[in-house]
């Protein structure tokens, strides 16, 4: 599998794994959000190494630019930036058992992926063809507005619906003062 430079792949994979562990382990939600930014940027670098340049740019724009800022904004809005000791509330044996089970699951996944020979039907988009057609971004964009136009429109409707839902849910209800706002 050609990823440009293997060294950079290992580097960013290590950063992503460490940062995603930090998200779970950190007591303070602000530290968790900062670790989440690091994990997202490292994953964006992995996408870029895999040749998905448009997805990498989208990752930076949408996740680190919008989602994480939204998280930090909500943390500040709710004054929730104090350490929460929720991990310590589960008993030590339950925690150890969960971590053991999930680590075993990762091991099983690694074993299966290593043993499997992927007999996938090969599509027509080899790296040479992609670069001949004008690069990853151009190929993905042309497909998005031709073959996947229906999914694109549906996703637009979904975004509109989610905006309406957020406004309705987060709106303060004053039933006694005649509803409305």
């Amino acid at each position, binding site marked *: 599998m050609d990823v440009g430079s293997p060294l950079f792949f290992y580097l960013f994979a290590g950063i992503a794994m460490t940062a995603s562990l930090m998200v779970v382990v950190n007591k303070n939600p602000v530290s968790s959000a900062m670790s989440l930014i690091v994990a997202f940027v490292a994953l964006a670098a992995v996408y870029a190494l895999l040749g998905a340049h448009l997805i990498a740019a989208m990752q930076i724009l949408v*996740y680190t630019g919008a989602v994480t800022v939204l998280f930090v904004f909500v943390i500040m809005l*709710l004054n929730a930036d104090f350490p929460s000791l*929720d991990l310590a509330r589960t008993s030590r044996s339950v925690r150890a058992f969960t*971590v053991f089970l999930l680590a075993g699951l990762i091991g099983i996944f690694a074993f299966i992926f290593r043993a499997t020979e992927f007999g996938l039907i090969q599509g027509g988009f080899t790296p040479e063809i992609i670069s001949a057609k004008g690069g990853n971004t151009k190929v993905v964009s042309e497909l998005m507005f031709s073959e996947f136009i229906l999914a694109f429109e549906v996703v637009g409707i979904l975004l509109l619906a989610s905006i309406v839902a*957020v406004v309705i849910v987060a709106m303060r209800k004053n039933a006694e003062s005649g509803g409305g706002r």
Partner: protein
Amino acid sequence: MTIPAVQPWMVLTLSSFIFIVGLAGIVLRRNILVMLMCIELMLNATVLSFVSFSKIAFDMTGELTAFFIIVVAAAESAVGLGLLIAMFRTLRSVDSDQIRLLKE
């Protein structure tokens, strides 16, 4: 010293590692903010899996699906944080143990 080349199973194992770390966060943490962050991590692991299979099979459908997953994840986090604000307004807490209105 030569660095070993990247195999497809390494990328898929990275994806499953991040997914399971997110799952562990959902199971072990009680802070809903952190649980939402872990949902984002799990969705990102799925995106990584789609991108790597797109690379393995020389097919662009995986990358298109990854794009749509990113959009849905953004919508999901917005709705989740809106629900979190509504919950904080009634319960004054971001702890999932405080959601027990049906029990009382």
